[in-house]
């Protein structure tokens, strides 16, 4: 087995000790991408030149006896809504198709300082709006488990890059589930941290009170390692929590003896049987390992989706006002500024982005603000209070990550609301600012990955990941990536 398949912790250890060269690990990653990404389209931009320079820098540091960092030589993929100085950052949108940022985001910088080697920028639903990566203006990404199916979204490219074995670590952003949902559909681990734990400086904003950057990995351990590297206060982000990165690796194998686990009932009627049975089975694994599991009903969870589809578009309509053809990105000329703005945005934004800008603008407009946005903010309070009550009784909550496994291209694009329902189980924790993780747990009858979600209160990453590790321990290795890209399975039908 190649070192590239052994995970980030093992790669970093080998490079730090001199056992392996960062340059060689990188060449293997680039070769795999070259061979298979033509079909999968995980990457918008492959950063061959800068990656090679970085890998050489890491190997030189090791040779000189300097500390190369905890992620030394680990090839990583970055969602293309994370600013990388000197490398175009498109948000998979025509309006930023050729935009080159003049600065690195904080997470990008911290990863480089840790010795990680950024190999490329990954495909996403345009401006992070979507659940399938079909909204990318440059073509979708294909799920390596079945290339006729979506990888999920909006961070589909990063999830698929890890699932395909191109890189051991990917990074995405999660506003309503955009890390956890593709993680579940791609059979990899995906973590959304507590809001404010990871800096948003350099993350191109979608919904500022909801967005968080987080890692994809093949193991909970690697995800914990990645989160330790990127988390912690950032003076450039006024919404970042005033604390350092948490220690997550240390207690990871501590087990779940005596922990109180609540299995959320309220989604189970709305999800596919494979998804609901997986979370029930995961509760069984925890119970067998010494936790106390109980069903819990939190009906306010179901308020989450409608509240989110007012709040997130409202915030997006404000955040995307900056794409006006003045300072950066696409410009379509006009006789006056207002016409230039409107033509630029009409030409540069795809259908889903326009939908969300419109609904967001409407919800904030005079006469409608209280009825929609004001009410949604109150619904958000109700969701938060419901979680608080639940966490008086439980240490963590378990739920399905997604209502279905990976669906076929085009299966949910006819009616936008069908796509929005993909976020049913993930949205509430974004509204609350709480962390969540999806752990690959099973395969359905079509051989498609099913993830299970662990939720914890704010700053509960340590217990959340400990529970996730216990679930991972009780899951078959066949349920998780990486996998070699496979075309549509003949057996088991092609139903999505």
């Amino acid at each position, binding site marked *: 087995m190649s070192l590239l398949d052994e995970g980030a912790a093992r790669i970093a250890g080998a490079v730090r000790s001199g056992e392996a060269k960062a340059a060689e690990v990188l060449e293997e990653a680039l070769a795999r991408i070259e061979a298979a990404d033509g079909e999968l389209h995980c990457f918008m931009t492959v950063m061959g030149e800068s990656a090679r320079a970085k890998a050489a820098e890491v190997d030189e540091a090791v040779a000189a006896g300097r500390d190369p960092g905890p992620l030394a030589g680990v090839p990583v993929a970055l969602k293309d809504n994370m600013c990388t100085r000197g490398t175009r950052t498109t948000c998979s949108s025509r309006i930023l198709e050729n935009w*080159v940022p*003049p600065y690195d985001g904080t997470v990008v910088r911290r990863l480089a300082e840790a010795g990680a080697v950024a190999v490329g920028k990954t495909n996403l639903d345009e401006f992070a709006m979507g659940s399938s990566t079909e909204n990318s203006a440059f073509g979708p990404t294909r799920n390596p488990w079945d290339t006729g199916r979506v990888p999920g979204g909006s961070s589909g490219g990063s999830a698929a890059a890890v699932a395909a074995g191109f890189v051991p670590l990917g990074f995405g952003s999660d506003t309503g589930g955009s890390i956890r949902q593709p993680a579940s559909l791609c059979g990899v681990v995906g973590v959304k941290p507590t*809001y*404010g734990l990871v800096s948003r400086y350099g993350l191109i904003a979608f919904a500022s*009170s909801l967005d968080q950057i987080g890692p994809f990995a093949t193991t909970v351990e690697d995800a914990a390692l990645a989160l330790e590297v990127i988390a912690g206060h950032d003076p450039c982000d*006024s*919404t970042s929590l005033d604390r350092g990165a948490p220690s997550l690796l240390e207690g990871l194998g501590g087990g779940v003896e005596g922990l109180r686990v609540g299995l959320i009932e309220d989604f189970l009627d709305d999800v596919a049987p494979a998804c609901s049975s997986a979370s029930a089975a995961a509760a069984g694994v925890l119970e067998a390992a010494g936790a106390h599991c109980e069903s819990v009903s939190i009906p306010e969870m179901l*308020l989450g989706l*409608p*509240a989110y*589809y*007012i709040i997130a578009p409202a915030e997006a*309509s404000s955040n995307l*006002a900056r794409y*006006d*053809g*003045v*300072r*950066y*990105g*696409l410009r379509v000329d*006009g*006789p*006056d*500024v*207002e*016409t*230039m*703005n*409107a*033509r630029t*945005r*009409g*030409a540069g*934004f795809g259908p889903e982005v*326009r*939908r969300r*800008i*419109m609904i967001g*603008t*409407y919800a904030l*407009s005079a006469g409608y603000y209280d*009825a*929609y946005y004001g*009410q*949604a*903010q*109150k*619904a*958000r*309070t*109700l969701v*938060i209070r419901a979680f608080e009550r639940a966490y008086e009784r439980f240490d963590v909550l378990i739920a399905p990550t997604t209502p279905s496994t990976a669906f076929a291209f085009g299966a949910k694009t006819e*009616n*936008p*609301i069908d796509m*929005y329902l993909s976020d049913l189980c993930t949205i509430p924790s974004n509204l*609350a*600012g709480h962390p969540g993780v999806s752990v690959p747990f099973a395969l359905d009858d079509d051989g498609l990955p099913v993830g299970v979600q662990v939720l914890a209160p*704010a700053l509960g990453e340590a217990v959340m990941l400990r529970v996730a590790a216990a679930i991972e321990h009780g899951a078959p290795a066949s349920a998780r990536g990486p996998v070699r890209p496979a075309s549509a399975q003949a057996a088991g039908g092609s139903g999505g």
Partner: protein
Amino acid sequence: MEGISIEEARHVARLARLELTEEELAKLTAELSALLEHVDRVRRLDTADVPPTAHPLPLENVLRPDEVRPGLDRAEVLAVAPATEDDRFLVPRILGEAP
């Protein structure tokens, strides 16, 4: 509940500075109406005495000392601008300005 009319949608599109064809506008109007129906339960919620939450963190007045620090490299920023003149972003005339 009533959906949104085409004229209301046209007004929203103008607020949002989005140029749309009549066909695009008609389609968006229908989609918006459907979405408004879907979120209507939030509009109808009894929220007496429930305070709004704008932000999940109890952060207030995050400040730093008023010290000058280096900003972005001006040349790098201007290099990716659609149109510049001297050290400024160049735009078409703003309506209502004296010629």
